[in-house]
């Protein structure tokens, strides 16, 4: 499960550290103690920044780094679609072989396909993504993002 890509993100995380943001959330995975504090900064519906700090395993750390790399600069609705595809992949229990279309959407995040075989680790991979979804919904002040969950 430890793809080179994941290890790279773990060792050299993108956009780590807390910066200015519109909303801050704190999410915890109670079963393993992984934690993340995450801030989103929007410009209208465009994602200006996702900054974060946390502790946890390589999977949760790398996943936050990928999230940052993949979503910053996008429109929220595009980003939500990426998040949905990632969620689908993570819930696939290793049974989903990412095709080209999926790779186009997820880029580095396809490296997490192997993690989906490990139920205990899926939550680690999803932690930052769930935190981001929550923060974004709050920042937009409506249920739009929440609904598409």
């Amino acid at each position, binding site marked *: 499960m430890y793809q080179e890509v994941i290890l790279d993100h773990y060792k050299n995380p993108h956009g780590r550290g807390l910066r200015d943001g519109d909303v801050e959330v704190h999410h*915890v995975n*109670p*079963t*393993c103690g992984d934690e993340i504090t995450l801030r989103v900064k929007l410009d209208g519906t465009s994602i200006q920044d996702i900054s974060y700090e946390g502790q946890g395993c390589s999977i949760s750390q790398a996943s936050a780094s990928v999230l940052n790399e993949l979503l910053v600069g996008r429109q929220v609705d595009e980003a939500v679609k990426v998040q949905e595809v990632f969620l689908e992949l993570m819930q696939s229990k290793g049974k989903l072989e990412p095709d080209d279309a999926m790779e186009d959407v997820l880029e580095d995040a396809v490296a997490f396909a192997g993690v989906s075989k*490990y*139920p*205990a*680790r899926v939550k680690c991979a999803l932690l930052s993504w769930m935190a981001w979804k929550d923060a974004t919904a709050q920042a937009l002040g409506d249920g739009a993002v929440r609904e598409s969950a």
Partner: protein
Amino acid sequence: MTPQLPGLLDAEAIRKDFPVLDRLVHDGKKLVYLDNAATSQKPRQVLDALSEYYERYNANVHRGVHTLAEEATALYEGARDKIAAFINAPSRDEVIFTKNASESLNLVANMLGWADEPYRVDSDTEIVITEMEHHSNIVPWQLLSQRTGAKLKWFGLTDDGRLDLSDIEQVITEKTKIVSFTLVSNILGTVNPVEALVRRAQEVGALVLIDASQAAPHMVLDVQALQADFVAFTGHKMLGPTGIGVLWGRQELLEDLPPFLGGGEMIETVSMHESTYAPAPHKFEAGTPPIAQAVGLGAAVDYLSAIGMDRIAAHEHAITEYALRRLKEVPGLKIIGPDTPEGRGSAISFTLGDIHPHDVGQVLDEQGIAVRVGHHCARPVCLRYGIPATTRASFYLYSTPAEVDALVEGLEHVRNFFG
């Protein structure tokens, strides 16, 4: 010669799967096992599932990142999926593993005792059961009643072994919080009218708990069709191992109701000052669960489903019809409970003149025939019918008409012996 009855399974083929049925007792007598209402025998498929679990996968479940822990978790949770499908549960998360039906029943009683409104059972409220319950569906409610001050009420029985619902409106009232009854009586064999009881309970907003311990092994059990709130049953009576039971409960109730046993596995997060609980079913599964036993029960429902619960029910119906007919030929034998095959299961209780059931059972045993004698953990039924005890023969998918014949012959011998 034993007749061929319509609806019979190929019991000879099935019996090959059950090692214990080859047992000889008392110097070479073939075992005739007619004590299935107490516990069933186990097919090789279940024993193999147990051995395979221990020999290849054994580990503690949940939270492990090593291979065995993940495999064991998948097997344990896979068993939950199987049980959920077997009882047509809307969600797998509604299936709680307990140690036996008794724990399942006590679990509900305790949840309601500690619940907040609107579920809370307290001194202003009433609990309703029936006179034909197994002690495991009486004593938990007596304890709850003593401990909360709630009033315990019950339905009586008619002379022919059925629930007397003539006063249903007086028994189940606006004060009733819970109605708990058995789907099939383990002593009388009676199948109870679920619909009438559920309808009345719903009218007054009471919860319904169905004790399906004698139903799950023998007929199609569809918790959605029953429309109950909770359904309890036990593994060892349905080809599964000892040490495992099931409580099914409606999701929103399981969310709202408080936990019972506290400990590992049932928590979300713990500090010395306070704890929060995992969502159901884990909230109600404190400690290391009966992992191997769940896997074994999963194999048991696979076995039952492969044959088909409707076909098993038809087989038992045919055997029961035949048994009732043959037993009535025995002079002095009196059936306690419905004496026709309609609306009854395959447990048949009877008395034999004034020969005490202990003597009946012992002399039958000397001929290799295993029946149960006593009050069958339903002593109020014996009190109701003014008898100290009964002899009970109970059948299952591997029972044959020849075994019924052996029983009838055995009873002739008992009569001569004490005559």
